[in-house]
């Protein structure tokens, strides 16, 4: 998961949402089919994938997928 493209593909696959890189900067609530519950799943999925802990506080407050990508890659 080294690029935003790979990240979006992973999230799209895990959550079964038809996402593209164009969605990276969208407000999460504006993404069709988005549910706040998805964030709870992303904690598990991203920690398993990257092998390191993610700040749950920051993730729960993340405005968009790009911010989540940053959290996942930079910790």
């Amino acid at each position: 998961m080294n690029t935003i493209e790979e990240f979006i593909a992973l999230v799209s696959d895990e959550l079964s949402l038809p996402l593209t890189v164009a969605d990276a900067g969208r407000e999460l609530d504006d993404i069709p089919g988005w549910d706040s519950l998805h964030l709870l799943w992303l904690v598990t999925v991203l920690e398993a994938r990257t092998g390191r802990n993610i700040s749950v506080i920051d993730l729960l407050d993340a405005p968009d997928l790009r911010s989540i990508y940053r959290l996942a890659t930079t910790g």
Partner: protein
Amino acid sequence: MDVSAQDAAARLRELAESGRLIAEYPRAGGLVDRLAGPELDRAGRLLARLDPGEITRAHPALPAVTVGVTGHGTLAPLIPALAAQFARHGLVPRPVPTDFGNYVFDLLDPGSELRRAHPDLILCVLDAGVVFDEVPVPWRPGDVRRAADERIGVIERLAARFDETGAGTLVLNTMPLPRRYIAQLVDHRSRAELGVVWRDVNTRLLRLAETCASVVVLDLDPIAAEGVRVTDDRLSVHAKMHLTGEMLTAYATEVGHLARQITGRAKKCLVLDLDGTLWGGVLGDDGVEGIEVGDGRRGEAFLGFQRVVKQLGDQGVLLAVVSKNEAALVDRALREHPRMALGEQDFVQVIANWQPKHDNIARLAENLGLAADSFVFADDSAFERELVRREHPGVAVVDLDGDPALHARSLLRDGWFDVREVTADDRARTRRYRDEAARMSFLDGFASTQDYLRELDIHVRIEPVTEAGAARVSQLTLRTNQFNLTGRRLQTRDVLELVRDVTALPLAVHAGDRFGDHGLVGAVLARRDGDLLRIDNFLLSCRVFSRSIEESCLNWLLRHARDTGAAAVLGTYRATAKNKRVADFYPRNGFVPAGPPGGDTVTFRHGLTRIAPPPAHIRLQTPEGEPA
């Protein structure tokens, strides 16, 4: 993840991408069965999006189970976990989620959204926060005890109230104690005291299963002890999700088996391979003396597995062998090997030959009068397992791989044989099936079935169901599929209601013959309705088909109705996936259709003017004690 799991995940994705998850829901369930961990979670998320109504329209034969979800904390992640488990078992979940943290109201108020949905299962998921939310700071073990007394008291009252007024089954759970509580106490004496308090809390929860017939308590402590993480402090604090996704998945697995059981789909028979499964080595090459069981590292492990299998057999699980081996050699091994825990007498049938195993499984099903989808098949050969999976998609297949010390864990990973309670009838089941095998060879000696039936000396006893017998009648409704005229399942509490209802006439049918006692074999659930006698359901165990026991009972009931002033008897047949063979039960016995058929339900009427003579080969003992 092994190759087949990867393959299954890929195929499931294909189904989802091509929009065929609903059309191929049963196949999707078969694929989910191969998944674990993150792939299983992902499958659950996919399946949770499907509309249950559409699944049912596409597959009307699949049982739908309404599941209410309430409890302490954020439980939404449980819904996908349930979706995956239910799909795996060929069930359609209809989840009824509730608002956060309202479980007392949800359960207590008959007008709550939860109660109005009339769930078959209500999951009230509890965690340690139920008590610790009420504990002041700073605290001592005594404060926890006081808070626990209050909260557990509320849950006990909820359970008792539900037991009196609710329908369906309430599922509670024990609450594993996270270390972060015990570690807040610095002295060992207080830690021990808190340990005692907490075990009392969980004991009180477990006791509810004894006092409330409609309550099931899942014990999560053994799951936690296996290393499934109970809580993630970050998700617990920030998102009020007090149990981890892993723990909720384990919980959903248990609930899946419970749902299987309430819809009459619990497995009945464990079919085992021999070489590499029950003992080490190859019987044909190594001989009876050379197989590994009892002694040596591997031998001890196989013996341990045999003991677990025997333990299951003692509780009503039928055990059978299907093995590629010489029959005579197998016979000798099972009779003569000095170190085996299992012997020939533990099995209802041993099939050893060189035929394909799926053919032997079909033969076994026929011999036992059971559907193959009530079988669990355990084998150490991946080749045999795949073949059985392909030929019998309804058979649950247990992968026994590698170290035989892991066989028991693999077999017990899923609660295939879970029931609410084991009855005396269950414990005697293997003997009954073996008696049946003796009957079959007795039958070979007769020119006609009539001669055989006469010589069999069948005696049948009909009597009102008692409170003590309610659990067994409930079991019968849960296990009986083929001769079940409406397919309706009753929990113990439902049967107790019938026992106490003065207009109801729930009858238990017991039978025996020269080879032994069959115990409870059937039930007739009738009731008075003005000058009518209505038969709401009629059930007969497949163990006693083709003996006219059902005719004998129906015949008595007709005469009883006539003698007690009834004008007619009405009987209902509702088609299910498995009860086609009894669709003509009422017309065959002098009933005529009463009005036009309505959907899959037909009502029949008997005017009681001409009642056929009872079957001559059956001695019938009735509630009045009248000789018949």
